[in-house]
């Protein structure tokens, strides 16, 4: 198959960014312009003079992808070319931390863009530092587990809820464990007029510490434990949820596959921490009606 996202890029084996980018272009088709902020995706796909992008693509800075996308959309509108779709694809740091002002402005202004956040839960391009999307107790290079620490002290920032508060007409959470669901939601997001947001949970083999063949398996477990609920929100209301049902797994099944949570299984007091993480999953199950 001739994919718009080309092979031969410099991503790691099992790279989550490459998978999300590929699925996004499968959903978007040829008539689109893609914006990426600085990050792994940008670095690995465009080492000059090579490019993995079969569609027009632009990278400007770390914190401004949503602003650049706004400008592209406005220009296309002004020049009568608004059949072309505008899609931003960025990591969690570039989206929910340093890119927060830009995405907030773009969504408040109501540009007809789709923003896909590849959430691998830390700053992977710079060496696995903590971001606002890093989950509770994850050990990163700037929130390491240690003698008196179980790692990251805060839960993930709830970005989909923040984008919903901006009045976005369509928001969906997706996971690399469910590619068909992801492509379907991205396609829907692109088709809906106005600013739409896709938050893609994307396990990083290098940063999370699991075998490169397990990206999809780890992603599935995040969903099956209730730690990453899959849902769609239309005009602020949740309109669909992926039920876990009988597949429901304890959080340990997900956590034990990853080096970043290893300390929870080896360090004294880890049991108590595991209970807290299970409580986060249980709350999600109740909140989103996942059972």
């Amino acid at each position, binding site marked *: 198959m001739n994919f718009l996202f080309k092979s031969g890029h410099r991503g790691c084996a099992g790279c989550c960014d490459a998978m999300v980018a590929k699925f996004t272009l499968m959903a978007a088709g040829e008539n689109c312009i893609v914006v990426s902020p600085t990050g792994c995706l940008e670095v690995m796909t465009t080492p000059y003079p090579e490019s993995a992008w079969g569609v027009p*693509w632009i*990278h400007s*800075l770390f914190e401004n992808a949503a*602003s650049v996308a706004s400008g592209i959309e406005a*220009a296309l509108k*002004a020049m009568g070319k608004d059949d072309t779709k505008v899609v931003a694809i960025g990591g969690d740091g570039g989206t929910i931390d340093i890119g927060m*002002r830009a995405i907030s402005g773009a969504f408040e202004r109501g540009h007809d863009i789709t923003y896909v956040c590849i959430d691998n839960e830390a700053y992977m391009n710079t060496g696995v530092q903590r971001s606002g999307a890093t989950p509770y107790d994850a050990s990163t290079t700037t929130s390491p587990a240690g003698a008196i620490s179980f790692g990251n002290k805060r839960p993930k920032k709830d970005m989909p809820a923040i984008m919903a508060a901006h009045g976005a007409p369509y928001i969906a959470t997706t996971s690399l464990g469910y590619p068909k669901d992801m492509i379907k939601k991205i396609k829907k997001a692109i088709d809906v007029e106005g600013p739409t947001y896709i938050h893609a949970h994307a396990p990083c083999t290098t940063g999370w510490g699991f075998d490169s063949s397990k990206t999809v398996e780890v992603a599935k477990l995040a969903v099956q434990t209730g730690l990453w609920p899959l849902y769609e929100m239309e005009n602020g209301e949740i309109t669909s949820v992926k039920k876990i049902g009988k597949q429901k797994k304890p959080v340990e099944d997900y956590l034990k596959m990853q080096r970043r949570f290893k300390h929870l299984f080896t360090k004294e007091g880890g049991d108590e921490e595991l209970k807290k993480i299970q409580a986060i999953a249980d709350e999600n199950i109740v909140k989103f009606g996942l059972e």
Partner: protein
Amino acid sequence: MAVIRDLNKDKMDVVEGSYAVAHSVKVCKPNVISAYPITPQTHIVEDLSQFIADGEIPNCEYINVESEFSALSALVGSSAVGARCYSATTSQGLELMHEVLFNVSGMRLPIVMTIANRAVSAPINIWNDQQDSISQRDTGWIQLYAEDLQEASDMHAQAYKIAEDKDVMLPVMACMDGFILSHVYEPLVLLEQDLVDEYLPPYEPEYKLDPKNPMTFGSFADPECYTEFRYLQQKAMDNALGKVEEAANDFYKTFGRYYGGLIDEYETEDAEIILMAMGSVIGTIKETIDKLRAKGVKVGLLKVRAFRPFPVEAIRNAIKNAKVVVAIDKNISLGLNEGALFTETKASLYNTSIDVPVIGRMIGHGGRDIPLSTIEKIIDDAVNVMKSGISVESQYADLKEELL
């Protein structure tokens, strides 16, 4: 060369500087305007917003961004798609754009942006000096400085002409002193639409983001090729030297108005003392020169219109026969105690056979008024240099010792 202006009084309007600039932007037919309000740039973007609201700028979108950082970032996208783009800012807003400025020039996007020059904080101060744009001198933007409203207004058509030239493809800052030019009313000829259409062709970039011909913009350049990108930016700046002159000459042919190209000169032919300056202070200096010429002082003016690219050759030629040169700066490089025009002029003369003493005087910071007496005092300093050599190379010429 003196200023040439074919000004027909019947064609003149009395307008605010900001309105004149907004009108100029309108007749240059931008596709995207993106700006964030900041004093004293606000009247420009308010007037443009009104033009949009009244349907006077067809095929144009105005983006009300949430910060200056996004104002320019949005235009990165717009310009890359092939849109003619405009923004305006000043001071803190320009400093907030710092990272984006490098990005725009590095991606060779010919965006034009007005700078209503203002001091930088702290202490916070909304009045005029040129510290804001001078501090951005290494960001790869062409910088032009206007003397008065007519020039500021006309400069915008020239800016697009230079920026979008295939041999340049660099962004341009059209700098006008905040309040002194942005908020003052003067009689002037509003840029004529029919003549602009003749002077400025539509923007048709060689490379753009287009699904029919996909290209990658803003790729990652490693040590194997990064230097060459930077080198080519400098080559474009070199090309801009000629294009700034060309744009001014072509403008004269079409509109009958001329303010100099890279530089302009006033009473320099037999001048022993040459003052160098940029922006609205030029008018005050000319008046002082007229006054002192009447008393027999051989003083002239070198107006620097282009600070980037820095017109080294033009400056050398203009000052080589003077006995003393004074560079006047509305900025300071802290730690060097020199203004940028002074430092760079000195550097331009080193390793040449030109042996003219140059001194620097910093004035008008944070909006401090510049009366004729300040310029006269500076000329007195210059006379003393001719008599007995340089005593103080660089200093503030309007410091209030009593406040220290």
